[in-house]
């Protein structure tokens, strides 16, 4: 009798190689947290960031090793396939870049190095769980693991009121989003009787008109919309992005978005594929609203971080188009655009970080005024990022937008393609303003800087010397700026490597047309 029971209870099978990227992130988080307690300054301020950077790189490396494998992890709770791995590349690259941006920042000093990087790595681990999730429970687990460290990270510049405000705002609104999502997931379970994506997909044809399912879909969509900052669930984005420390903003803008859109790809284009008639038009409408709201909101912003926040709302709208059509081409286009979006955003945020530390204007647009004359290379990087986000040819952003419109038109959503184009037109007005400030205006005078600075705001680097933005003052931030700026240009001319990755990610979702 006991023998029979024991035979039925089996420990879940672990696929250790498949889990290795996740273990690298979580292991890194633990080690970094421990080492952060060491008394030696050298260990805390050099070794800890290096280890955090190393963990992200290790996760990418292990991902490259696992690329091409398709396996179920932990009894089918998660799935490692090309989509998981390639999205891991995106958010780990964003994480590695953000570690470098944060290295000499205020946030890491105030929050202590160990905790800051440990939270970042934990959040990245949550993203892995989220994009790999194969059932509703894992999905929610991943989402919370991703969100909670971010709430804290936003508030790490403890001496600055806006940073605390940002953390609190994100916490409250993020929790509302999570609650909505959880409620929605419960409805989906109620309608289909399964928490498993495969189980939901198989039961779906019978319940496609069930009001229970439709309610669940709507709530889930809203919950995920909060995370991906899809309008009308985007209101927190500008405030939180502006208040958070800039490296955290960069991480949120890229990595969180990649994870949120990744899980939407899996949830809508795999589990709910057969209900596309239900959610397709709704999601398309949300995409169109997001594009318009994001681009209009960005007009007239004078804070670069707010501008990037609104622009990220608009960009999320573009990428939704790839999810709406529910075709293999659409998945590929979204994944491709996520990679491109990583390059453009990190390049832009690196420039913002450098100027934030070199001038007294913070992240105001005046901090980059006249940059073309002072630091042409830096201005060139920012220009490439802005042109790329606007979708001008010879940048990767153009190819990405081309791919998305191609997918939209091929999936019978030509009007959404036109909305993307109209959004890009509006976006020119604010991206060009940054470019014009850099190249076509004289630098702000030091008197203006003194007035703007007031007693409280000083350049973050000691002294705020005239050459504080020179490469030798903060080489690691320059590295991020130049590498991602160059990637924006190079992949705009030779996009084939990115296409290969996108096609592999698309192939991972088996049942798509």
């Amino acid at each position, binding site marked *: 009798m006991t023998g029979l029971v024991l035979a039925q209870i089996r420990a879940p099978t672990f696929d250790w190689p498949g889990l290795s990227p996740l273990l690298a992130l979580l292991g890194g988080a633990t080690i970094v947290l421990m080492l952060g307690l060491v008394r030696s300054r050298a260990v805390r301020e050099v070794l800890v960031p290096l280890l955090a950077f190393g963990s992200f790189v290790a996760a990418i490396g292990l991902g490259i090793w696992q690329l091409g494998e398709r396996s179920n992890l932990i009894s089918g709770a998660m799935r490692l396939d090309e989509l998981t791995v390639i999205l891991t590349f995106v958010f780990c690259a964003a994480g590695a870049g953000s570690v470098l941006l944060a290295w000499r920042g205020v946030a890491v000093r105030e929050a202590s190095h160990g905790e800051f990087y440990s939270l970042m790595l934990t959040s990245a681990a949550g993203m892995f769980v989220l994009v790999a999730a194969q059932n509703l429970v894992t999905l929610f687990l991943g989402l919370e693991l991703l969100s909670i460290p971010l709430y804290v990270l936003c508030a790490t510049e403890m001496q600055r009121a806006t940073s605390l405000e940002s953390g609190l705002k994100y916490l409250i609104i993020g929790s509302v989003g999570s609650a909505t999502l959880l409620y929605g997931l419960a409805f989906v379970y109620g309608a289909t009787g399964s928490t498993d994506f495969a189980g939901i997909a198989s039961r779906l044809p019978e319940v496609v008109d069930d009001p229970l399912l439709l309610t669940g879909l709507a709530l889930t969509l809203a919950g995920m919309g909060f995370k991906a900052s899809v309008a009308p669930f985007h209101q927190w984005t500008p405030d939180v992005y502006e208040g958070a420390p800039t490296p955290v903003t960069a991480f949120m803008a890229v990595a969180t978005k990649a994870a949120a859109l990744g899980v939407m790809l899996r949830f809508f284009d795999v589990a709910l594929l057969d209900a596309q008639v239900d959610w397709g038009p709704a999601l398309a409408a949300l995409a169109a609203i997001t594009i318009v709201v994001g681009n209009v909101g960005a007009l007239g912003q004078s804070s670069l971080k707010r501008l990037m926040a609104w622009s990220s709302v608009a960009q999320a709208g573009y990428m939704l188009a790839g999810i709406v059509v529910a075709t293999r081409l659409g998945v590929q286009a979204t994944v491709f655009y996520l990679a491109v979006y990583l390059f453009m955003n990190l390049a832009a945020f690196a420039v913002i970080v450098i100027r934030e530390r070199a001038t007294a204007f913070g992240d105001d647009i005046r901090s980059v005024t006249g940059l073309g004359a002072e630091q042409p290379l830096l201005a060139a990087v920012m220009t490439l990022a802005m042109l790329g986000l606007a979708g001008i040819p010879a940048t990767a952003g153009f190819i990405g937008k*081309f791919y998305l419109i191609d997918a939209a*038109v091929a999936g019978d959503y030509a009007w959404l393609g036109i909305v993307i184009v109209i959004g890009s*037109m509006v976006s020119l007005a604010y991206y*060009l*303003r940054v470019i014009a400030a850099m190249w*076509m205006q004289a630098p702000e005078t030091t008197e203006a800087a003194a007035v703007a600075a007031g007693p409280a705001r000083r350049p973050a680097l000691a002294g705020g010397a005239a050459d504080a933005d020179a490469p030798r003052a903060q080489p690691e931030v320059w590295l991020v700026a130049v590498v991602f700026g160059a990637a924006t240009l190079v992949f705009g001319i030779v996009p084939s490597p990115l296409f290969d990755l996108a096609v592999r990610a698309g192939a991972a979702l088996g049942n798509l047309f």
Partner: protein
Amino acid sequence: MHLSIVLWLPLAAGVVGALLPGGLSRWAMVAGALATLVLTVILVVDFDTGAAGLQDVTDETWISELGIHYKLGVDGLNLFLILLGAVLFLASAVWSAMTEWDRPRLYYFWLGLAETGVLGALMAQDLALFVIFFDLMLVPFLFLTGSWGGPGRVPAIMKLFIYTLVGSLLMLAAAIATGVLAPGEGTTFVLSDLAARRLPEGSQDWIFLCFAAAFLVKMPAFPLHGWMPDGYRAMPLPVLAVFSGILSKVAAYGFLRVVLPLFPDASVRFQELMLLIALASILYGSAMAFTTTNTRLVLGYSSVAQLGFIVLGIFALRPEGAQGAVIQAVNHGLVVAPAFFIVGLLAARAGSEDLRDMGGIAFRAPVLATMALIVTFAVLAMPGSSNFVGEFLILLGVFQSKVVIAIVAFAGVVMASVYALRMFIRALHNRVGPAVGSREMTVRDGLVLVPLVAAILAFAFYPQIALDKAERSVTQSIRAAQQAQGADQQAEVRP
């Protein structure tokens, strides 16, 4: 010859110039533009007039996932426009080299990129590639004007850039739709393939309108010319000469290369709309050129009118009209660049670009006045100039298809002589302006002006060279539209 070399040489020169010390970058660009011109002349000499289809084709797969090819080629449609582009950019480079610029390395880099962009748009034989170069060629002008332009340059260039990119982005969506919606296996953007897989009539309409919007804004045509006055006032003159001389022609060329062969049914359906826009441009442009006193804007509005003639010729949907349009595109480019150079010389002498401050210079500067007179005669299409040949062919074509429009368009010819002569007389004759210092042009100025005027004269004596080489391709370009028109007329007769 390998077209890629011609295409990328100017950009390479710009990059080399950007790496050299500031004083040398100008000569790198001049050398690059000169080499490009030499290669283009060889291209024209080697061109086989008898052969049909594209020559010197380069065809590589660029992005296989999207079906985009890197395909370049020349035929009678773009051959002389490429030559025109090379001539104008050389003139602009030499002219720029005589001027001192702030941050010269950057300036010449952008100029090089601009030439590559323009040549790319003219050479591209793949729709996506065409769109890419069409958008890309605008970016250098954004920076050239924004950084080195006159007062009010930043708002002006924003307006220009947004206006024209609105058109371009609509065209992007339309181009993608053309590739995706075309019947047949797989997606392709190669123009010759797309012409063979004709779109269903229903989707041709909106796609046609998007393309037309992009091209009409770029020209500019009335009523989409809102960016033109501010943009023309703000641009540095050497930049404006190429901008007005060749960029607008790329738009006109786009109609012949892309719109007529790919969307023939829609072209026929919207023929009258396009003819009316062209007519409005002619009348409005001429009237404004006659009333404004800013010399740059006189030329700007005259360009609106001239481009109106070109559109008129294209949408006559007759071989004569289209051929006249090609000739007129080259003519106008050749005329407007020296005209802007003369404006620059006159403005330097009068201290202002306003006609009211100019005058009375001709007695002391007879050579300059002679040059200006030749250019003026070319603008007003004096019999004997090749502009006369161009306008004659255009009107002949329109006369065959729409008599009423042709009659109204004749008024435009008359008005051209009025505004051209008015500008010539007030700028060079009449009483001497208040602050005018009458000086003859220098030998250095002659270096730019004389070759351009010589080109006008040469083309006036022998327009046949372009007509012969263009004929076959032009006929090919409008064949589909003519067939569609014929089918429509038969359908009207039958019931």
